[in-house]
């Protein structure tokens, strides 16, 4: 059973190797990708079931004892994120195959390495392996974001790569600081030794970690690379990045900050969270193209997740965990629906679109449900997530951040309405005609793309339907993250 943890990382890597071998046979590549990812989903579900029943599980890879060897740990938070991440990755893989986005033979290998990196980041039990898995994920993302090698992709890809590399350099620097200060990198070992450091050093390490993961999670003011690079990549790639990469950053922030237990940073985190929410959503309102609006939304939503952490209460962290869970498929499906719009009409520019609710009602539904969820309309998952965060904020008496969160939520709805009225309502004849180059458009996207989008909508609806049990799990995950005795026991005791 414990073999599941390393297998979750290794299996996608083996799949990637097979895809490289079969790089001339697209059908084989597709089969390998789908089988590997489906197995990944199955393993993630089994890990979650086991962790839910028996508490955190740790594996010492290569039988080197805990503080020195490579440790993989799954606690409830990691297992929950892993399951929803794998489901989303599988959904987007089907979508990409339907769209024919895998035209270049490097797509499937890079995609599977990305999956392995995501799984590894969730399961890593020490800082350096977290760095390695992050790099695995990011290097795959560098390939995917520049896969077409067009001028726009190369230009924005360059910014993306350089900024992420700078953050990674900072990561190694922090690793060196932590090792020099405490003599360990194992997170469980670290949580015991960290408290004995001088206060100033604790704050310095906590802040460096927050800033460094903040670049990857795109918090204010470190988000500049995101709305620049995401819209230029192919839709399937943008969708999986939107759902996963920034969330892995948020996971790393929650994991490290709860391990270090620096409540003093709470107020600072809350201020950053508030500004991130507002700046992201205001940026979204100013944009005039579907993917760009959605890209700014990613930033705004990150603010909510950080807010839950900043409260440093069980309710707050539980809210943050539930928020991440509902955002992984929720954000992805919005991009998938936006991609369907582009596939049907040839453009994502709001002023060129209109009336799609009559010509493509299925796309309209696929967009409407996650959009309402993102805006926090009951009874969808986004409502539960926002409600839990607001309640946590109220019980922690953090009035200002609650007010900011509510205002940002209304603004989110405003910008979603902008897409809705621009794309789906109105009269298509009033919109200016498309340029001749885009004239030959399909009115019906491939059925597989629509099916994948609807399946992902199904996941978001399932989160809403089973919100009770999932939130219950999130609460227990938050409890064990804040008081990490069980986590430490699982790692150090075995």
């Amino acid at each position: 059973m414990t073999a599941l943890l390393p297998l979750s990382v290794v299996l996608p890597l083996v799949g990637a190797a097979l895809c490289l071998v079969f790089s001339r046979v697209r059908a084989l590549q597709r089969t390998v990708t789908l089988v590997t990812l489906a197995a990944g989903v199955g393993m993630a579900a089994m890990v979650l079931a086991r962790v839910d029943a028996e508490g955190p599980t740790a594996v010492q890879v290569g039988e080197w004892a805990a503080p020195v060897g490579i440790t993989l740990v799954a606690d409830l938070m990691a297992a929950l994120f892993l399951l929803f991440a794998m489901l989303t990755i599988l959904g987007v893989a089907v979508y990409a195959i339907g769209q024919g986005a895998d035209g270049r033979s490097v797509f499937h290998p890079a995609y599977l390495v990305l999956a392995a990196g995501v799984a590894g980041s969730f399961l890593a039990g020490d800082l350096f392996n977290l760095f390695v898995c992050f790099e695995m994920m990011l290097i795959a993302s560098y390939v995917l974001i520049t896969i077409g090698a067009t001028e726009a992709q190369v230009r924005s890809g360059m910014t993306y790569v350089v900024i992420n590399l700078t953050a990674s350099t900072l990561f190694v620097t922090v690793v060196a600081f932590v090792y020099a200060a405490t003599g360990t990198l194992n997170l469980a070992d670290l949580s015991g030794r960290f408290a004995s450091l001088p206060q100033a050093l604790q704050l310095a390490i906590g802040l460096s970690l927050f800033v460094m993961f903040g670049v990857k999670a795109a918090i204010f003011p470190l988000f500049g690379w995101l709305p620049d690079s995401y819209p230029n990549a192919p839709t399937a790639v943008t969708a999986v990045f939107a759902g996963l990469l920034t969330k892995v950053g948020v996971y790393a922030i929650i994991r490290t900050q709860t391990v270090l237990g620096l409540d003093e940073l709470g107020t600072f985190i809350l201020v950053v969270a508030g500004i991130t929410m507002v700046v992201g959503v205001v940026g979204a309102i100013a944009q005039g193209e579907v993917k760009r609006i959605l890209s700014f939304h990613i930033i705004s939503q990150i603010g909510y997740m950080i807010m839950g952490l900043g409260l440093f209460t069980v309710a707050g962290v539980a809210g943050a965990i539930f928020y991440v869970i509902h955002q992984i498929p929720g954000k992805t499906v919005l991009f998938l629906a936006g991609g369907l719009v582009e596939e049907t009409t040839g453009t994502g520019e709001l002023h060129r679109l209109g009336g799609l609710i009559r010509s493509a009602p299925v796309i309209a539904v696929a967009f409407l449900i996650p959009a309402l969820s993102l805006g926090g309309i009951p009874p969808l998952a986004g409502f539960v997530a926002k409600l839990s965060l607001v309640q946590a904020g109220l019980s922690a008496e953090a009035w200002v951040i609650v007010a900011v969160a509510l205002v940002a939520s209304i603004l989110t709805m405003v910008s979603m309405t902008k897409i809705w009225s621009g794309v789906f309502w109105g009269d298509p004849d009033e919109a200016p005609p498309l340029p001749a180059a885009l004239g030959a458009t399909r009115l019906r996207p491939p059925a597989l793309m629509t099916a994948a989008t609807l399946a992902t909508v199904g996941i978001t609806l399932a989160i809403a339907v089973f919100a009770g049990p999932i939130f219950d799990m999130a609460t227990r995950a938050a409890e064990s993250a804040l008081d990490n005795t069980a986590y430490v026991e699982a790692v150090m005791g075995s």
Partner: protein
Amino acid sequence: MSLALAVCAATLFGCGTYLLLQRTLTRVILGIALLGHGTVLLLQVAGGRAGAPPLMSPDTPGSAVVDPLPHALALTAIVITFGVTAFLLALAYRSWSLTQDDEVRDDLEDRLVARRIDAEIERSQAAAERERSDGRPEGDGS
């Protein structure tokens, strides 16, 4: 902790950051490489004092040998930096063959905003100019 290593790491970080802030892609890549070397040195510093090679027999005291863990970390970090630098060079070459230019270009939106600001500055300058030329005859006359 060795002062020489610390100073070397600091110099590498300084030069790397300076190069990273340039607009020429080749310099940016050199900057990334220097930063990578800086972090590798820093990892060595983090390992503590220098000592004998960590080839121990059971009766060797632990304090006599150097801590091997940072070396393993440094090797991994070097490999990652190497791979990514190769990718960056390929990307920079692609960028050069597309645009015949080694400079990082601005985002389309950024360029539009910059153009609008330029136009506004020009307009306000022209207005100021006009005011001055309107005002001068009056001033001369009085």
